[in-house]
């Protein structure tokens, strides 16, 4: 086989805000053969996207390729003039961004954007381009290939938009296609369709691919070889089979073990406590003004009942739009439910947060998905943690400072962190501060809204461990909301599955996907990628499941 891309001793510098130069990619060398799919895998900040972009001779603003070679078809993209590089981009090398929704112009029809490449490079007439686009839509298994191009980006689903972005990239028959986390923002059931379409089209046209992702299970389905990156350096390179079955490097092993965290075990503790911490009955919540029948304009949660025994955890799983986050917000009272009852620790709570007593608010805390936006960037960690202490416990001065140190110990952060601003912490550290703030209130129940979804797998696994440990020490209960079945299984005693605002099932985690389960939960369970190279090809979707899926779409 012939090398299509040869990367040798690649170095990339980035300039920080304070003007210091930091080497973010250090001596990276690898090859990509024609028709081969190579995955770049690593956590955020490992340089995987930066390397992918250098394959187009491009460095993000503030970054600079400072050394090495990127040979594409015997041309060095590092020293090639910008004009030549521009001619290659979109023509011979194409790029599919992570968020197709942000990559499409919402004001133009899809077909005009897909055929734009031909217009820019003047390689193909508009009429031919349209014919070709329709053929690509068909190859990518898009519905209504003839007319889908006449729609606007908001009129198609997220998975379809991602495939349309792939069609745009494939318009000029590139030799190399770069995928930058193309399925990260998609639901698992949608991810399968998109992965299948990508895989088929790459094999059929014999296009080489670079697949950037943090998700080993997804990469295992599509890649021939995997490059494991950390801090801008290659840790391990190998065939997909070898990386997954016999990882050599310790970091790779960490990555693999983080994919399926150990499930919850309560050794020796089988006695079900009989008191209930949270009981929710017939909860209806939604957005918009109330209509005549007393319901909000958009009903996101339709009559949901949940029940959490003291010291136990309930997971709520569902795809985007299933109403799981709205449920958490309604329970917390931030989005007052339009009807229903919330009984917390034996007493009924007002639906609106403003009517709840301070004591009730203290005992029920909420932690959000994005640690970045849930910590005020203008205040130090100390101020952030001190506020709930002052607010709920009227602590001041010495006792407050002592308690902050304790809290930081609890979430396993160094005490010096308290002098820092949130922007000076990493994502995982921020999420720990976020947890510490909730713990400062000394709550009985914490609502965790996708707390691990924005984190890297290894970091997320550590947070899950921390949550488990805190539970043991502090007799907490969690309402754990996630789209990720494997994290939920790792921490929850019971899992509720939500679909279109309704709770369709509640089972212990080990029974998810059993043959006698609800068809949708079977479908959801079957759609979670497994660390097995043959999983996608072997996956056969039952007609019964597909029917359930179609019903969801109809809603």
């Amino acid at each position, binding site marked *: 086989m012939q090398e299509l891309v040869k990367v040798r001793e690649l170095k990339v510098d980035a300039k920080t805000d304070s003007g210091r130069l930091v080497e973010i990619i250090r001596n990276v060398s690898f090859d990509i053969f024609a028709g081969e799919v190579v995955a770049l895998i690593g956590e955020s900040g490992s340089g995987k996207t930066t390397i992918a972009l250098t394959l187009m001779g491009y460095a993000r603003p503030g970054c600079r390729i400072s050394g090495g070679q990127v040979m594409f078809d015997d041309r060095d993209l590092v020293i090639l003039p910008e004009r030549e590089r521009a001619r290659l981009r979109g023509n011979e090398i194409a790029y599919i961004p992570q968020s197709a929704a942000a990559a499409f112009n919402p004001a133009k029809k899809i077909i005009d954007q897909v055929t734009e490449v031909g217009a820019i490079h003047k390689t193909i007439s508009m009429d031919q381009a349209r014919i070709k686009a329709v053929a690509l839509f068909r190859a990518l298994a898009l519905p209504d290939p003839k007319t889908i191009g006449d729609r606007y980006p908001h009129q198609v689903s997220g998975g379809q938009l991602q495939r349309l972005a792939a069609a745009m990239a494939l318009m000029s028959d590139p030799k190399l296609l770069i995928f930058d986390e193309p399925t990260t923002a998609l639901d698992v059931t949608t991810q399968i369709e998109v992965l299948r379409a990508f895989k088929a089209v790459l094999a059929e046209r014999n296009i080489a691919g670079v697949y950037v992702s943090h998700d080993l299970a997804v990469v295992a389905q599509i890649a021939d070889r995997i490059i494991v990156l950390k801090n801008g350096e290659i840790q391990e390179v190998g065939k997909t089979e070898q990386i997954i079955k016999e990882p050599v490097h310790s970091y790779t092993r960490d990555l693999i073990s983080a994919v399926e965290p150990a499930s919850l075990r309560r050794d020796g503790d089988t006695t079900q406590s009989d008191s209930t911490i949270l009981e929710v009955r017939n909860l209806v919540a939604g957005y918009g003004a109330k209509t005549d029948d007393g319901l909000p304009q958009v009903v996101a949660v339709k009559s949901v009942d949940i029940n959490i025994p003291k010291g136990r955890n309930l997971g709520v799983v569902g795809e985007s739009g299933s109403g799981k986050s709205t449920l958490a917000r309604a329970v917390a009272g931030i989005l007052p439910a339009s009807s229903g009852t919330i009984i917390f620790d034996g007493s009924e709570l007002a639906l609106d947060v403003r009517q709840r007593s301070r004591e009730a608010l203290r005992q029920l805390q909420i932690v*959000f998905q994005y640690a970045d*936006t849930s910590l005020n960037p203008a205040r130090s960690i100390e101020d952030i943690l001190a506020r709930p202490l002052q607010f709920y416990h009227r602590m001041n001065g010495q006792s407050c400072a002592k308690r902050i140190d304790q809290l930081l110990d609890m979430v396993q952060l160094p005490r010096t962190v308290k002098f820092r601003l949130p922007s000076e912490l990493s994502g995982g550290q921020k999420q720990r501060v976020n947890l510490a703030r909730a713990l400062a209130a000394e709550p009985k129940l914490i609502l965790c809204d996708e707390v691990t979804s924005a984190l890297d797998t290894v970091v997320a696994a550590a947070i899950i461990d921390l949550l488990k440990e805190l539970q043991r020490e502090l007799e907490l209960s969690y309402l754990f909301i996630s789209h990720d079945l494997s994290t939920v299984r790792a921490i929850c005693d019971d899992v509720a599955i939500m679909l279109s605002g309704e709770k369709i099932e509640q089972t212990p985690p080990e029974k998810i996907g059993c043959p006698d389960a609800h068809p949708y939960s079977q479908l959801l369970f079957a759609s979670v990628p497994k660390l097995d190279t043959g999983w996608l090809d072997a996956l056969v979707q039952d007609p019964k499941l597909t029917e359930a899926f179609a019903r969801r779409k109809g809603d």
Partner: protein
Amino acid sequence: MKATDAIPVASRRSRYKFNRVAIACFAVIIAWTLVAIFAPLVVRYPIGKIVDYNYFGPISWNFWMGTDYLGRDMFSRIIMGARFTVGISLIAVLIACFNGVVVGMMAAVVGGWFDTIVSRVMDALISIPSKLFGLVVVAGAGSSLPVLVLTLAVIYTPGSYRFARAFAVNINTMDYITVARARGERLGYIIRSEILPNILAPILADFGLRFVYIVLLLSGLSFLGVGVQPPNADWGALVRENLDGLSFGAPAVMFPSLAIATLTISVNLLIDNLPQKIRDRSE
């Protein structure tokens, strides 16, 4: 990896340091403020008194900044003018920005009908031409310093309100505001501790700009005869009344112009060069 991770805690204090430009500008502003406060001790002649037979007189030992179109001492007039220009503008801009920013943040956080009503009232105020509004109010209520200050403050409040509200609305959607609400925080805490620190940078920039606008509007009103009443004059009025002297290159036009320029440029440069810690706390 972010470089800020590497910054040791001790060096963080350096962010509070003022740079040289900021110190120079601050000195100019302080100097003008002192001049305004101690003006009566500094003036050499009564400001209304015609002391020179020559009009548009040159710089001389007796008249440090020449004489004006009637032969009055420019130095004394500028020194006394500082009281009006610095005093009226500063008080007016403080009132305007305080009200605008506080109400703007409240509107963003409370939302609903409160936001709608306040925003429409502010929009209605914006739609009235500022000079016309000033003329009508001063004509109706008579020209006195409190009336002038309040009029200028009212004219510039809606702009400040709009500005602050636009930023606060963005901050209001952040999760930390939701967390504060879920904690049960009151409106006062949310706007003071959660929103204000994050919108302070643009608010300060707006403050500087608004100050300059007020200086200019005050001069305009004085020119129309409804601002500071003769024989007193603010700097803007001094420029206008001596405009004829421009063709003679009279110092009577140059010096008040320079005074306005030094003050307004200093205010803006100072705000642009505030320590990073204050200027942009999110960095």
